[in-house]
Protein backbone atom coordinates (compact mmCIF):
# COMPACT_ATOMS: atom_id res chain seq x y z
CA UNK A 1 0.00 0.00 0.00
CA UNK A 2 1.27 3.48 -0.79
CA UNK A 3 -1.40 5.06 1.41
CA UNK A 4 -3.30 3.45 4.24
CA UNK A 5 -5.80 5.35 6.36
CA UNK A 6 -7.51 3.73 9.32
CA UNK A 7 -10.42 5.14 11.29
CA UNK A 8 -9.59 8.78 10.65
CA UNK A 9 -11.90 11.05 12.67
CA UNK A 10 -12.21 14.80 13.03
CA UNK A 11 -14.87 16.80 14.83
CA UNK A 12 -15.56 20.55 14.54
CA UNK A 13 -17.77 21.55 17.46
CA UNK A 14 -21.04 19.74 16.87
CA UNK A 15 -20.11 18.48 13.41
CA UNK A 16 -18.49 15.08 12.99
CA UNK A 17 -16.70 16.02 9.77
CA UNK A 18 -14.81 12.72 9.53
CA UNK A 19 -16.30 9.69 11.20
CA UNK A 20 -13.80 6.85 11.00
CA UNK A 21 -12.62 6.95 7.40
CA UNK A 22 -10.68 3.94 6.05
CA UNK A 23 -8.85 4.11 2.76
CA UNK A 24 -6.19 1.93 1.14
CA UNK A 25 -4.48 2.95 -2.07
CA UNK A 26 -2.21 0.63 -4.07
CA UNK A 27 0.81 2.00 -5.94
CA UNK A 28 -0.15 3.18 -9.41
CA UNK A 29 -3.81 3.68 -8.58
CA UNK A 30 -5.80 6.64 -9.84
CA UNK A 31 -8.35 6.81 -7.07
CA UNK A 32 -11.41 9.05 -7.12
CA UNK A 33 -13.18 10.18 -3.98
CA UNK A 34 -16.69 11.34 -4.69
CA UNK A 35 -19.50 12.53 -2.47
CA UNK A 36 -21.89 15.45 -2.13
CA UNK A 37 -20.72 18.85 -0.86
CA UNK A 38 -20.03 18.61 2.85
CA UNK A 39 -19.29 14.88 2.67
CA UNK A 40 -15.89 15.63 4.25
CA UNK A 41 -13.62 15.30 1.23
CA UNK A 42 -11.59 18.48 1.79
CA UNK A 43 -11.43 17.88 5.54
CA UNK A 44 -10.18 14.41 4.72
CA UNK A 45 -7.34 15.84 2.61
CA UNK A 46 -6.51 18.45 5.24
CA UNK A 47 -6.42 15.90 8.05
CA UNK A 48 -4.53 13.39 5.92
CA UNK A 49 -1.81 15.94 5.23
CA UNK A 50 -1.39 17.18 8.78
CA UNK A 51 -2.90 20.61 8.24
CA UNK A 52 -5.54 19.51 10.76
CA UNK A 53 -4.77 17.15 13.61
CA UNK A 54 -7.05 14.10 13.62
CA UNK A 55 -9.00 13.27 16.80
CA UNK A 56 -8.23 9.62 16.18
CA UNK A 57 -7.10 7.28 13.45
CA UNK A 58 -3.86 6.50 11.66
CA UNK A 59 -2.31 7.51 8.36
CA UNK A 60 0.49 5.45 6.78
CA UNK A 61 2.44 6.49 3.70
CA UNK A 62 4.57 3.73 2.18
CA UNK A 63 4.20 1.83 5.43
CA UNK A 64 5.45 4.69 7.59
CA UNK A 65 3.18 6.23 10.22
CA UNK A 66 2.71 9.89 9.19
CA UNK A 67 -0.34 10.70 11.30
CA UNK A 68 -0.37 14.42 12.07
CA UNK A 69 2.95 15.04 10.26
CA UNK A 70 2.89 18.73 9.23
CA UNK A 71 2.51 19.49 5.50
CA UNK A 72 6.09 20.60 4.86
CA UNK A 73 7.53 17.39 6.27
CA UNK A 74 4.98 15.25 4.45
CA UNK A 75 5.88 17.03 1.23
CA UNK A 76 9.54 16.15 1.79
CA UNK A 77 8.56 12.50 2.24
CA UNK A 78 6.94 12.46 -1.20
CA UNK A 79 3.30 13.53 -0.89
CA UNK A 80 2.20 16.33 -3.21
CA UNK A 81 -1.05 18.22 -3.17
CA UNK A 82 -3.19 20.64 -5.14
CA UNK A 83 -6.11 22.62 -3.76
CA UNK A 84 -9.79 23.00 -4.53
CA UNK A 85 -9.29 26.76 -4.79
CA UNK A 86 -6.30 27.09 -7.10
CA UNK A 87 -3.23 27.75 -5.03
CA UNK A 88 -0.32 29.36 -6.86
CA UNK A 89 2.05 32.27 -6.23
CA UNK A 90 0.08 35.02 -7.95
CA UNK A 91 2.65 37.78 -8.10
CA UNK A 92 5.51 35.59 -9.32
CA UNK A 93 5.98 34.59 -12.96
CA UNK A 94 4.98 31.09 -14.05
CA UNK A 95 8.66 30.18 -14.24
CA UNK A 96 9.39 31.53 -10.75
CA UNK A 97 6.40 29.61 -9.38
CA UNK A 98 7.97 26.33 -10.44
CA UNK A 99 11.51 27.46 -9.56
CA UNK A 100 10.44 28.12 -5.98
CA UNK A 101 8.94 24.64 -5.75
CA UNK A 102 12.13 23.14 -7.18
CA UNK A 103 14.27 25.13 -4.73
CA UNK A 104 12.08 23.88 -1.90
CA UNK A 105 12.36 20.30 -3.13
CA UNK A 106 16.15 20.57 -3.40
CA UNK A 107 16.19 21.96 0.17
CA UNK A 108 17.88 25.13 -1.07
CA UNK A 109 15.53 27.75 0.37
CA UNK A 110 18.00 28.43 3.16
CA UNK A 111 20.66 29.36 0.70
CA UNK A 112 21.19 33.10 1.28
CA UNK A 113 23.74 34.24 -1.27
CA UNK A 114 23.52 32.69 -4.78
CA UNK A 115 21.20 34.29 -7.29
CA UNK A 116 18.06 32.21 -7.51
CA UNK A 117 17.20 33.34 -11.04
CA UNK A 118 19.89 31.06 -12.46
CA UNK A 119 18.82 27.96 -10.54
CA UNK A 120 16.62 25.13 -11.86
CA UNK A 121 15.56 27.18 -14.87
CA UNK A 122 15.80 24.29 -17.34
CA UNK A 123 13.90 21.85 -15.16
CA UNK A 124 11.23 24.47 -14.48
CA UNK A 125 10.79 25.07 -18.21
CA UNK A 126 10.54 21.32 -18.76
CA UNK A 127 7.81 20.96 -16.16
CA UNK A 128 5.88 23.91 -17.58
CA UNK A 129 6.08 22.37 -21.06
CA UNK A 130 4.80 19.08 -19.65
CA UNK A 131 1.61 20.79 -18.48
CA UNK A 132 1.31 22.85 -21.65
CA UNK A 133 2.52 26.18 -20.30
CA UNK A 134 5.81 26.29 -22.19
CA UNK A 135 4.73 29.52 -23.88
CA UNK A 136 3.83 31.41 -20.71
CA UNK A 137 7.10 31.29 -18.77
CA UNK A 138 7.39 34.99 -18.04
CA UNK A 139 3.68 35.64 -17.52
CA UNK A 140 2.71 36.78 -14.05
CA UNK A 141 0.87 33.77 -12.66
CA UNK A 142 -2.12 35.78 -11.42
CA UNK A 143 -2.87 36.94 -14.98
CA UNK A 144 -3.14 33.40 -16.41
CA UNK A 145 -6.55 32.00 -17.33
CA UNK A 146 -8.18 29.82 -14.69
CA UNK A 147 -7.42 26.54 -16.44
CA UNK A 148 -3.79 27.57 -16.93
CA UNK A 149 -3.51 28.42 -13.24
CA UNK A 150 -4.74 24.91 -12.43
CA UNK A 151 -2.09 23.47 -14.75
CA UNK A 152 0.54 25.69 -13.17
CA UNK A 153 -0.42 24.35 -9.77
CA UNK A 154 0.02 20.85 -11.14
CA UNK A 155 3.54 21.78 -12.32
CA UNK A 156 4.30 23.18 -8.84
CA UNK A 157 3.13 19.94 -7.26
CA UNK A 158 5.12 17.81 -9.73
CA UNK A 159 8.26 19.85 -9.00
CA UNK A 160 8.34 18.16 -5.62
CA UNK A 161 8.69 14.74 -7.33
CA UNK A 162 5.90 13.24 -5.26
CA UNK A 163 5.16 9.53 -5.33
CA UNK A 164 1.62 10.21 -4.14
CA UNK A 165 -0.34 13.15 -5.49
CA UNK A 166 -3.51 14.38 -3.80
CA UNK A 167 -5.70 16.51 -6.05
CA UNK A 168 -8.63 18.34 -4.49
CA UNK A 169 -11.13 18.94 -7.31
CA UNK A 170 -8.55 19.34 -10.07
CA UNK A 171 -11.20 20.45 -12.57
CA UNK A 172 -13.21 22.85 -10.39
CA UNK A 173 -14.35 25.92 -12.26
CA UNK A 174 -13.57 24.58 -15.74
CA UNK A 175 -15.89 24.14 -18.72
CA UNK A 176 -17.01 20.55 -19.41
CA UNK A 177 -14.64 19.93 -22.33
CA UNK A 178 -11.66 21.47 -20.54
CA UNK A 179 -12.33 19.27 -17.52
CA UNK A 180 -11.87 16.06 -19.46
CA UNK A 181 -8.74 17.35 -21.18
CA UNK A 182 -7.35 18.44 -17.84
CA UNK A 183 -7.90 15.18 -15.99
CA UNK A 184 -6.54 13.22 -18.94
CA UNK A 185 -3.39 15.33 -18.79
CA UNK A 186 -3.01 14.56 -15.07
CA UNK A 187 -3.71 10.89 -15.76
CA UNK A 188 -1.15 10.67 -18.55
CA UNK A 189 1.54 12.46 -16.50
CA UNK A 190 0.83 10.26 -13.49
CA UNK A 191 1.34 7.17 -15.63
CA UNK A 192 4.50 8.50 -17.25
CA UNK A 193 5.98 9.52 -13.91
CA UNK A 194 4.73 6.46 -12.08
CA UNK A 195 2.72 8.39 -9.48
CA UNK A 196 -0.23 7.22 -7.49
CA UNK A 197 -3.09 9.72 -7.34
CA UNK A 198 -6.06 10.35 -5.14
CA UNK A 199 -8.47 13.01 -6.40
CA UNK A 200 -11.84 14.38 -5.39
CA UNK A 201 -14.27 15.27 -8.12
CA UNK A 202 -17.89 16.21 -8.72
CA UNK A 203 -18.10 15.60 -12.45
CA UNK A 204 -18.99 11.93 -13.01
CA UNK A 205 -17.84 12.04 -16.62
CA UNK A 206 -14.38 13.00 -15.38
CA UNK A 207 -14.42 10.34 -12.67
CA UNK A 208 -15.46 7.51 -14.96
CA UNK A 209 -12.98 8.61 -17.63
CA UNK A 210 -9.88 7.95 -15.54
CA UNK A 211 -10.53 6.45 -12.09
CA UNK A 212 -9.21 2.96 -11.41
CA UNK A 213 -11.24 2.74 -8.20
CA UNK A 214 -13.84 4.98 -6.60
CA UNK A 215 -14.48 5.72 -2.95
CA UNK A 216 -17.84 7.28 -2.10
CA UNK A 217 -18.00 9.51 0.98
CA UNK A 218 -21.16 10.66 2.70
CA UNK A 219 -21.49 12.53 6.00
CA UNK A 220 -17.90 11.91 6.99
CA UNK A 221 -17.98 8.17 6.30
CA UNK A 222 -17.02 5.87 3.47
CA UNK A 223 -20.31 4.74 1.99
CA UNK A 224 -18.98 2.47 -0.72
CA UNK A 225 -15.82 1.57 -2.58
CA UNK A 226 -15.07 -0.38 -5.71
CA UNK A 227 -14.30 -0.30 -9.39
CA UNK A 228 -16.24 2.27 -11.42
CA UNK A 229 -18.63 -0.46 -12.62
CA UNK A 230 -19.28 -1.72 -9.07
CA UNK A 231 -19.87 1.76 -7.69
CA UNK A 232 -22.20 2.67 -10.52
CA UNK A 233 -24.29 -0.40 -9.69
CA UNK A 234 -24.61 0.27 -5.95
CA UNK A 235 -28.10 1.36 -5.10
CA UNK A 236 -27.28 3.51 -2.03
CA UNK A 237 -24.67 5.35 -4.05
CA UNK A 238 -27.24 6.14 -6.69
CA UNK A 239 -29.57 7.44 -4.01
CA UNK A 240 -27.20 9.81 -2.21
CA UNK A 241 -25.14 11.00 -5.07
CA UNK A 242 -25.46 9.83 -8.59
CA UNK A 243 -29.17 10.39 -8.74
CA UNK A 244 -31.47 7.61 -9.93
CA UNK A 245 -31.36 6.62 -12.71
CA UNK A 246 -27.62 7.04 -13.13
Amino acid at each position, binding site marked *: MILEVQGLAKRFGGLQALDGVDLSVEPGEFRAIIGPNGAGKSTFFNTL*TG*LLQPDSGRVRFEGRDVTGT*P*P*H*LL*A*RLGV*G*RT*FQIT*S*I*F*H*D*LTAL*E*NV*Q*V*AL*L*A*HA*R*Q*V*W*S*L*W*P*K*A*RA*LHGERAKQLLSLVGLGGALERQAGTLAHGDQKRL*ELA*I*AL*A*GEPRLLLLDEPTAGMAAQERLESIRLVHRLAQELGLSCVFTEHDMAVVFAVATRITVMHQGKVLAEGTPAEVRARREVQQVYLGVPA
Partner: protein
Amino acid sequence: MKPAGRLALGAAALLALPLAISDFWIFIAIEVLAFALYAVSFNVLLGYGGMLSFGHAAFFGVGGYAAAILMKKAGLPPGVAFAALPLVAMAAAAAAAVVVGYFSVRRSGIYFAMLTFAFQMLLYAVALKATGLTGGDDGMTGLKPPGLLAQPLAYYYFALALVAPALYVLFRLVSSPFGYALRALRGNPRRLQYSGVDVRAHQLAAFVITGAFAGLAGGIFALSSGNVFPGWLNWTASATPIVMAVLGGVHSFLGPALGAAVYVVLEVLISGKTEYWPLAMGIIILILVLLMPEGLTGLARRRTA
Protein backbone atom coordinates in the same frame (compact mmCIF):
# COMPACT_ATOMS: atom_id res chain seq x y z
CA MET B 1 21.73 53.45 -18.34
CA LYS B 2 22.99 49.98 -17.45
CA PRO B 3 22.67 48.83 -13.81
CA ALA B 4 26.47 48.80 -13.40
CA GLY B 5 26.66 52.35 -14.70
CA ARG B 6 23.90 53.51 -12.39
CA LEU B 7 25.61 51.82 -9.47
CA ALA B 8 28.94 53.54 -10.23
CA LEU B 9 27.19 56.88 -10.55
CA GLY B 10 25.34 56.37 -7.26
CA ALA B 11 28.55 55.39 -5.49
CA ALA B 12 30.38 58.41 -6.87
CA ALA B 13 27.55 60.70 -5.77
CA LEU B 14 27.51 59.26 -2.25
CA LEU B 15 31.30 59.59 -1.96
CA ALA B 16 31.37 63.17 -3.26
CA LEU B 17 28.26 64.39 -1.43
CA PRO B 18 29.78 65.37 1.95
CA LEU B 19 32.54 67.36 0.23
CA ALA B 20 29.93 69.67 -1.21
CA ILE B 21 27.78 70.39 1.84
CA SER B 22 28.07 71.98 5.28
CA ASP B 23 28.66 70.03 8.50
CA PHE B 24 25.01 70.48 9.41
CA TRP B 25 23.93 68.75 6.22
CA ILE B 26 26.56 66.06 6.66
CA PHE B 27 24.84 65.15 9.91
CA ILE B 28 21.56 65.02 8.01
CA ALA B 29 23.18 62.84 5.34
CA ILE B 30 24.37 60.41 8.05
CA GLU B 31 20.82 60.30 9.39
CA VAL B 32 19.59 59.55 5.87
CA LEU B 33 22.08 56.68 5.55
CA ALA B 34 20.99 55.14 8.85
CA PHE B 35 17.28 55.52 8.10
CA ALA B 36 17.75 54.24 4.56
CA LEU B 37 19.14 50.98 5.94
CA TYR B 38 16.39 50.92 8.57
CA ALA B 39 13.61 51.43 6.00
CA VAL B 40 15.04 48.93 3.50
CA SER B 41 15.41 46.29 6.23
CA PHE B 42 11.80 46.92 7.24
CA ASN B 43 10.66 46.61 3.65
CA VAL B 44 12.38 43.27 3.13
CA LEU B 45 9.81 42.07 5.64
CA LEU B 46 6.85 44.02 4.25
CA GLY B 47 7.44 44.31 0.52
CA TYR B 48 9.04 40.89 -0.01
CA GLY B 49 7.70 38.80 2.87
CA GLY B 50 4.29 40.43 3.23
CA MET B 51 4.83 40.74 6.99
CA LEU B 52 3.65 44.10 8.37
CA SER B 53 5.56 44.59 11.61
CA PHE B 54 4.43 47.35 13.95
CA GLY B 55 7.49 46.72 16.06
CA HIS B 56 10.46 47.26 13.81
CA ALA B 57 11.48 50.32 15.84
CA ALA B 58 12.19 47.94 18.71
CA PHE B 59 15.25 46.63 16.88
CA PHE B 60 16.43 50.05 15.77
CA GLY B 61 16.08 51.10 19.42
CA VAL B 62 17.81 48.02 20.81
CA GLY B 63 20.69 48.63 18.39
CA GLY B 64 20.88 52.25 19.55
CA TYR B 65 20.85 51.35 23.23
CA ALA B 66 23.33 48.53 22.71
CA ALA B 67 25.69 51.02 21.07
CA ALA B 68 25.19 53.55 23.85
CA ILE B 69 25.69 51.03 26.65
CA LEU B 70 28.77 49.67 24.90
CA MET B 71 30.31 53.14 24.64
CA LYS B 72 29.34 54.44 28.08
CA LYS B 73 29.00 51.50 30.44
CA ALA B 74 31.05 48.57 29.19
CA GLY B 75 34.28 50.04 30.54
CA LEU B 76 36.19 49.38 27.33
CA PRO B 77 38.65 51.81 25.73
CA PRO B 78 36.62 53.98 23.31
CA GLY B 79 38.45 52.64 20.25
CA VAL B 80 37.78 49.02 21.15
CA ALA B 81 34.16 49.68 22.07
CA PHE B 82 33.66 51.55 18.84
CA ALA B 83 35.22 48.81 16.72
CA ALA B 84 32.86 46.30 18.30
CA LEU B 85 29.83 48.56 17.88
CA PRO B 86 28.45 47.32 14.53
CA LEU B 87 28.60 43.70 15.59
CA VAL B 88 27.24 44.35 19.10
CA ALA B 89 24.34 46.46 17.81
CA MET B 90 23.42 43.77 15.29
CA ALA B 91 23.78 40.93 17.77
CA ALA B 92 21.67 42.67 20.42
CA ALA B 93 18.92 43.47 17.92
CA ALA B 94 19.04 39.94 16.49
CA ALA B 95 18.73 38.44 19.97
CA ALA B 96 15.68 40.62 20.67
CA ALA B 97 14.25 39.67 17.26
CA VAL B 98 14.63 35.96 17.97
CA VAL B 99 12.42 36.29 21.04
CA VAL B 100 9.86 38.67 19.51
CA GLY B 101 9.79 36.77 16.22
CA TYR B 102 9.49 33.35 17.80
CA PHE B 103 6.12 34.28 19.21
CA SER B 104 4.97 36.74 16.55
CA VAL B 105 5.34 34.55 13.42
CA ARG B 106 2.87 32.11 14.93
CA ARG B 107 0.18 34.49 13.74
CA SER B 108 -0.21 36.35 10.49
CA GLY B 109 -1.71 39.62 9.25
CA ILE B 110 -3.04 42.01 11.87
CA TYR B 111 -2.39 39.52 14.72
CA PHE B 112 1.26 39.35 13.75
CA ALA B 113 1.31 43.16 13.69
CA MET B 114 -0.29 43.34 17.16
CA LEU B 115 2.17 40.88 18.68
CA THR B 116 5.16 42.83 17.35
CA PHE B 117 3.49 45.98 18.68
CA ALA B 118 3.03 44.46 22.14
CA PHE B 119 6.65 43.33 22.34
CA GLN B 120 7.82 46.75 21.30
CA MET B 121 5.82 48.36 24.13
CA LEU B 122 7.40 45.85 26.49
CA LEU B 123 10.87 46.94 25.40
CA TYR B 124 9.80 50.57 25.68
CA ALA B 125 8.84 49.94 29.30
CA VAL B 126 12.21 48.30 29.93
CA ALA B 127 14.07 51.30 28.46
CA LEU B 128 11.98 53.59 30.62
CA LYS B 129 12.31 51.67 33.89
CA ALA B 130 15.77 50.07 33.82
CA THR B 131 17.21 53.42 34.82
CA GLY B 132 20.58 52.06 35.90
CA LEU B 133 21.29 50.67 32.45
CA THR B 134 19.37 52.97 30.12
CA GLY B 135 19.13 56.28 31.94
CA GLY B 136 15.35 55.89 32.09
CA ASP B 137 13.34 58.86 30.94
CA ASP B 138 16.45 60.95 30.28
CA GLY B 139 17.92 58.45 27.86
CA MET B 140 21.65 58.36 27.29
CA THR B 141 23.47 61.41 26.01
CA GLY B 142 26.94 62.58 25.11
CA LEU B 143 27.72 59.69 22.78
CA LYS B 144 30.39 60.23 20.21
CA PRO B 145 32.80 58.24 18.08
CA PRO B 146 36.42 58.22 19.27
CA GLY B 147 39.16 60.50 17.95
CA LEU B 148 39.05 61.70 14.37
CA LEU B 149 35.88 59.76 13.62
CA ALA B 150 33.98 62.35 15.65
CA GLN B 151 34.47 64.67 12.66
CA PRO B 152 31.22 64.70 10.67
CA LEU B 153 33.01 64.01 7.40
CA ALA B 154 34.91 61.01 8.79
CA TYR B 155 31.83 59.60 10.49
CA TYR B 156 29.87 59.99 7.26
CA TYR B 157 32.36 57.75 5.44
CA PHE B 158 32.34 55.32 8.35
CA ALA B 159 28.53 55.13 8.17
CA LEU B 160 28.63 54.76 4.39
CA ALA B 161 31.19 51.95 4.71
CA LEU B 162 28.69 50.07 6.89
CA VAL B 163 25.42 50.97 5.17
CA ALA B 164 26.46 50.28 1.58
CA PRO B 165 27.65 46.69 2.20
CA ALA B 166 24.63 46.09 4.45
CA LEU B 167 22.30 47.13 1.65
CA TYR B 168 24.19 44.90 -0.76
CA VAL B 169 23.83 41.94 1.61
CA LEU B 170 20.09 42.58 1.87
CA PHE B 171 19.88 42.85 -1.91
CA ARG B 172 21.62 39.50 -2.33
CA LEU B 173 19.27 38.09 0.29
CA VAL B 174 16.12 39.03 -1.61
CA SER B 175 17.59 37.71 -4.88
CA SER B 176 18.68 34.43 -3.30
CA PRO B 177 16.66 31.21 -3.03
CA PHE B 178 15.79 32.35 0.50
CA GLY B 179 14.41 35.58 -0.97
CA TYR B 180 12.43 33.75 -3.66
CA ALA B 181 10.77 31.64 -1.02
CA LEU B 182 10.11 34.80 1.02
CA ARG B 183 8.33 36.38 -1.96
CA ALA B 184 6.38 33.19 -2.52
CA LEU B 185 5.17 33.00 1.06
CA ARG B 186 3.99 36.62 0.92
CA GLY B 187 1.19 35.59 -1.42
CA ASN B 188 0.61 32.01 -0.44
CA PRO B 189 2.23 30.50 2.64
CA ARG B 190 0.09 27.37 2.43
CA ARG B 191 1.21 26.47 -1.08
CA LEU B 192 4.83 26.92 -0.03
CA GLN B 193 4.27 24.74 3.01
CA TYR B 194 2.93 21.97 0.77
CA SER B 195 6.06 22.29 -1.34
CA GLY B 196 8.15 21.38 1.69
CA VAL B 197 9.09 24.72 3.24
CA ASP B 198 8.85 25.32 6.99
CA VAL B 199 7.09 28.64 6.58
CA ARG B 200 7.33 29.76 10.21
CA ALA B 201 11.05 29.10 10.40
CA HIS B 202 11.49 31.01 7.17
CA GLN B 203 9.52 33.98 8.48
CA LEU B 204 11.46 33.92 11.75
CA ALA B 205 14.78 33.95 9.90
CA ALA B 206 13.65 36.93 7.80
CA PHE B 207 12.48 38.67 10.97
CA VAL B 208 15.81 38.15 12.75
CA ILE B 209 17.99 39.13 9.78
CA THR B 210 16.05 42.33 9.10
CA GLY B 211 15.93 43.07 12.84
CA ALA B 212 19.72 42.79 13.00
CA PHE B 213 20.14 45.33 10.19
CA ALA B 214 17.66 47.67 11.86
CA GLY B 215 19.87 47.35 14.95
CA LEU B 216 22.94 48.29 12.92
CA ALA B 217 21.08 51.36 11.65
CA GLY B 218 20.14 52.28 15.22
CA GLY B 219 23.73 51.92 16.37
CA ILE B 220 25.03 54.10 13.55
CA PHE B 221 22.44 56.78 14.24
CA ALA B 222 23.00 56.77 18.01
CA LEU B 223 26.59 57.93 17.62
CA SER B 224 25.78 60.61 15.09
CA SER B 225 22.85 62.08 17.00
CA GLY B 226 24.83 61.70 20.23
CA ASN B 227 21.97 60.28 22.27
CA VAL B 228 19.29 57.62 22.57
CA PHE B 229 15.89 58.06 24.17
CA PRO B 230 13.11 55.68 25.20
CA GLY B 231 11.03 57.41 22.53
CA TRP B 232 13.02 55.44 19.94
CA LEU B 233 11.15 52.40 21.21
CA ASN B 234 7.77 54.01 21.54
CA TRP B 235 5.08 52.64 19.28
CA THR B 236 4.84 55.86 17.30
CA ALA B 237 8.45 55.30 16.23
CA SER B 238 7.41 52.21 14.28
CA ALA B 239 5.38 54.37 11.93
CA THR B 240 8.58 55.95 10.60
CA PRO B 241 9.89 52.99 8.54
CA ILE B 242 6.34 52.25 7.36
CA VAL B 243 5.93 55.80 6.05
CA MET B 244 9.40 55.78 4.47
CA ALA B 245 8.77 52.46 2.73
CA VAL B 246 5.35 53.45 1.41
CA LEU B 247 6.63 56.86 0.37
CA GLY B 248 9.52 55.38 -1.59
CA GLY B 249 7.64 52.37 -2.91
CA VAL B 250 7.41 48.92 -1.33
CA HIS B 251 7.82 47.13 -4.68
CA SER B 252 11.33 48.38 -5.24
CA PHE B 253 14.40 47.33 -3.29
CA LEU B 254 15.86 50.84 -2.92
CA GLY B 255 12.49 52.63 -2.88
CA PRO B 256 12.37 52.80 0.92
CA ALA B 257 15.90 54.29 0.96
CA LEU B 258 14.68 57.05 -1.30
CA GLY B 259 11.62 57.42 0.93
CA ALA B 260 13.94 57.76 3.94
CA ALA B 261 15.94 60.51 2.23
CA VAL B 262 12.82 62.48 1.29
CA TYR B 263 11.31 62.03 4.76
CA VAL B 264 14.42 63.10 6.67
CA VAL B 265 15.16 66.10 4.46
CA LEU B 266 11.53 67.26 4.50
CA GLU B 267 11.49 66.97 8.27
CA VAL B 268 14.60 69.11 8.57
CA LEU B 269 13.36 71.76 6.13
CA ILE B 270 9.90 72.02 7.62
CA SER B 271 10.78 71.76 11.31
CA GLY B 272 13.13 74.72 10.78
CA LYS B 273 10.21 76.82 9.58
CA THR B 274 7.31 75.94 11.84
CA GLU B 275 6.61 74.14 15.08
CA TYR B 276 3.62 72.56 13.36
CA TRP B 277 5.90 70.45 11.20
CA PRO B 278 4.12 67.15 11.95
CA LEU B 279 0.98 68.71 10.49
CA ALA B 280 2.82 69.88 7.39
CA MET B 281 4.56 66.48 7.04
CA GLY B 282 1.21 64.77 7.34
CA ILE B 283 -0.29 66.85 4.57
CA ILE B 284 2.71 66.35 2.28
CA ILE B 285 2.78 62.60 2.83
CA LEU B 286 -0.97 62.41 2.27
CA ILE B 287 -0.63 64.19 -1.05
CA LEU B 288 2.37 62.12 -2.14
CA VAL B 289 0.71 58.79 -1.30
CA LEU B 290 -2.58 59.77 -2.94
CA LEU B 291 -0.82 60.91 -6.10
CA MET B 292 1.63 58.01 -6.17
CA PRO B 293 0.10 54.83 -4.82
CA GLU B 294 3.26 52.94 -5.81
CA GLY B 295 5.54 55.46 -4.13
CA LEU B 296 8.27 57.58 -5.68
CA THR B 297 9.93 54.64 -7.42
CA GLY B 298 6.56 53.54 -8.81
CA LEU B 299 6.20 56.99 -10.35
CA ALA B 300 9.65 56.74 -11.93
CA ARG B 301 8.81 53.30 -13.34
CA ARG B 302 5.58 54.55 -14.88
CA ARG B 303 7.49 57.41 -16.55
CA THR B 304 10.09 55.13 -18.09
CA ALA B 305 7.63 52.36 -19.04
